[in-house]
């Protein structure tokens, strides 16, 4: 790898009588093909790249410093903005790290909800990555098809979380709300439609001469070099290493569903494209199995089976008419409107050190009120014991790690994110050196750089 080629003497011996010199070309920071903001300084010999330097940090917004200054649950909205194409995985990854640090087990239903939503997020990420890189090398139709399919998934996400991108759905100890009514049927129908879209895109791209010429043999990296760079995820699997955190060290409900880990052989852009296409199919397999297996949580009603709407219950409680409220459980509406109502306790852990009590408990009895106070008020909050934990989940780009050190206070003493595309960007000079200038575009597209996660 050429290190800091900018400082290198750029003159090459003259070929014949013609004097040739290397040229420097700045790509970015603001350039349509540099998703987000990143600068590539390339040194060119004709059309060939002979040196490169990557300048990052344009989107640095002190995530780690913020996370050290905020209580644990307040960090969750920041994690939405790490990989903003698949925010649910970040949410759950952070929550899982805090839960493991605190030794909390979430309920089985919640494990399945997290599995399903992670995979929905992964498909949106892969759709964006493949669609955008196909667009950049001329296949605009594919981009439109894939973004349409992503829109369906965003609708599902909105149905569950109440938002499309900045979802803040994870909670330490559970999720914000249960899956809505009819979610399984809608998801199955959408997955069928997405399969149709993927077949269409496959027809347009996979055997397309132009696409193959642009993708095959460009941006190659061997599995060994990729591992040395710490590259994980679809990028590594394109180089033939079958490492996937979901398989290697399963979390959530990934050990209860069957799925394959596709790998490539050449480690070039084309193999990475094929791996991503196959992973979307595998994610859909996971979702379908998880939807079939997801257990019902306990639902409590009073002796007469009477259920009060949550808002009526809150009003009644404010007037002090709380007799018998303890027995009643409300079916909460898990949309944005439902955010102010109770959380159904079948989707959250019974762990009261971390998870807010259901609203009717907060309003209805003193234990619930105390519990609420202890978790919400300044100087109380979720308190992880003194310790440290490194927790990894499989993000859309690779291993997304959270390393948390706690000194026993209500906020992390040190919160470190291991962003998966950081390692791939570090390897970018090695990937593009030797290729043509035009090959930078598909290579950079398959890196799937996400500024929010890279720069934090």
């Amino acid at each position, binding site marked *: *790898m050429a*290190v*800091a080629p900018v400082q290198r003497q750029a003159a090459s011996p003259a070929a014949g009588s013609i004097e040739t010199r290397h040229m420097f070309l700045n790509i970015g920071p603001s350039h349509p093909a540099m998703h987000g903001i990143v600068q590539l300084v390339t040194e060119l010999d004709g059309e060939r790249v002979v040196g490169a330097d990557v300048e*990052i*940090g344009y989107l*640095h917004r*002190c995530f*780690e*410093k913020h996370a050290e*200054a905020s*209580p644990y649950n307040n960090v969750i909205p920041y994690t939405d903005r790490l990989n903003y194409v698949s925010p649910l995985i970040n949410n759950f990854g952070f929550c899982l790290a805090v839960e*493991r*640090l*605190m*030794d909390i087990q979430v309920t089985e239903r919640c494990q399945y909800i997290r599995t399903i939503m992670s995979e929905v997020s992964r498909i949106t990420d892969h759709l964006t990555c493949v669609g955008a890189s196909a667009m950049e090398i001329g296949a605009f139709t594919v981009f439109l098809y894939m973004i349409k399919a992503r829109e369906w998934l965003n609708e599902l996400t909105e149905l569950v979380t109440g938002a499309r991108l900045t979802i803040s759905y994870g909670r330490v100890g559970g999720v914000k709300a249960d899956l809505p009514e009819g979610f399984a049927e809608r998801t199955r129908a959408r997955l069928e439609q997405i399969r149709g879209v993927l077949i269409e895109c496959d027809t347009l791209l996979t055997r397309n001469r132009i696409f193959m010429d642009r993708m095959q043999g460009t941006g190659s990296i061997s599995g*060994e070099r990729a*591992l*040395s*760079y*710490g*590259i*994980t995820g679809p990028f590594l699997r394109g180089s033939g*290493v079958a*490492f996937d955190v979901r398989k*290697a*060290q399963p979390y959530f409900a990934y050990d209860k569903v069957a799925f394959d880990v596709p790998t490539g052989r050449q480690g070039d852009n084309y193999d990475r494209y094929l791996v991503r296409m196959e992973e979307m199919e595998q994610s859909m397999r996971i979702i379908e199995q998880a939807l079939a297996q997801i257990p019902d949580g306990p639902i409590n009603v009073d002796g007469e089976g009477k259920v009060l709407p949550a808002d009526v219950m809150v009003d009644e409680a404010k007037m002090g008419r709380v007799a018998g409220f303890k027995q009643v459980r409300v079916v909460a509406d898990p949309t944005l409107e439902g955010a102010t109502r109770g959380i159904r306790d079948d989707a959250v852990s019974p762990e*009261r*050190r971390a998870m807010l009590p259901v609203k009717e408990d907060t309003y209805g009895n003193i*234990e619930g009120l105390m*519990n609420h106070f*202890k978790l919400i008020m*300044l*100087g*109380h909050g979720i308190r992880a*014991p*003194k*310790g*440290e*934990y*490194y927790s*990894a989940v499989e993000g859309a780009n690779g291993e997304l*790690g959270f*390393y948390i*050190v706690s*000194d*026993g*206070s*209500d*906020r992390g*003493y*040190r919160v*470190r994110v*291991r962003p998966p595309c*950081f*390692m791939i*960007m*570090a*390897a970018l000079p090695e990937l593009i050196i030797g290729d043509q200038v035009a090959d930078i575009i598909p290579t950079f597209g398959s890196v799937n750089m996400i500024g929010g996660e890279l*720069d*934090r």
Partner: protein
Amino acid sequence: MAHPSELLRQQFTADVLAHHAYRGQPTVLLSREALPSAARFLKDTPGLDFNVLMDLTAVDYLTFGKAQSSAPRLATPSPLPYYMTPKASAETWERGVSNDQYRFEVVYHFYSTALNHRLRVKVPVAAAEPSVASVTSVWASANWMEREVWDLFGIMFQGHPDLRRLLLYESFQGHPLRKDYPIYKRQPLIGPKN
């Protein structure tokens, strides 16, 4: 087969400052003199085979346990209700070295794809001379992560091929993830004047 942390401890008995396993994650604290040879040992020894340096970061222990948020802000702290107190069997964790003697700690997370195991190695660093040896020649991923640690913590990496700031700009003053860097501190604006 011996656990990776045991193999490392047997090889570097004199250089292991402490070791522990918290929540099932083994950790070895090594002296910084032993790091270059330990890095080779971790990568090349059969039974360890740590071919991936997953993560490299640092921690500043300056205010560990002394932060304002560490204790309840009430004059008479009220205890947690019985249903919120941690389980009695909860394991405890100690850093292993003194926070005053070693202010910083460089944390390495290793992973082996062949054997599917992980190990955390930490190298405590004193505040007076914050520098450790670079492991870029062993794992290429260390290159950028060491630059990031230099950028945000001001810990030097001896032998690094190109130790420049990574996320911040060259004229940035200070190292923001140090605990004595105020969170609301502003930096002078840079760039062309207009």
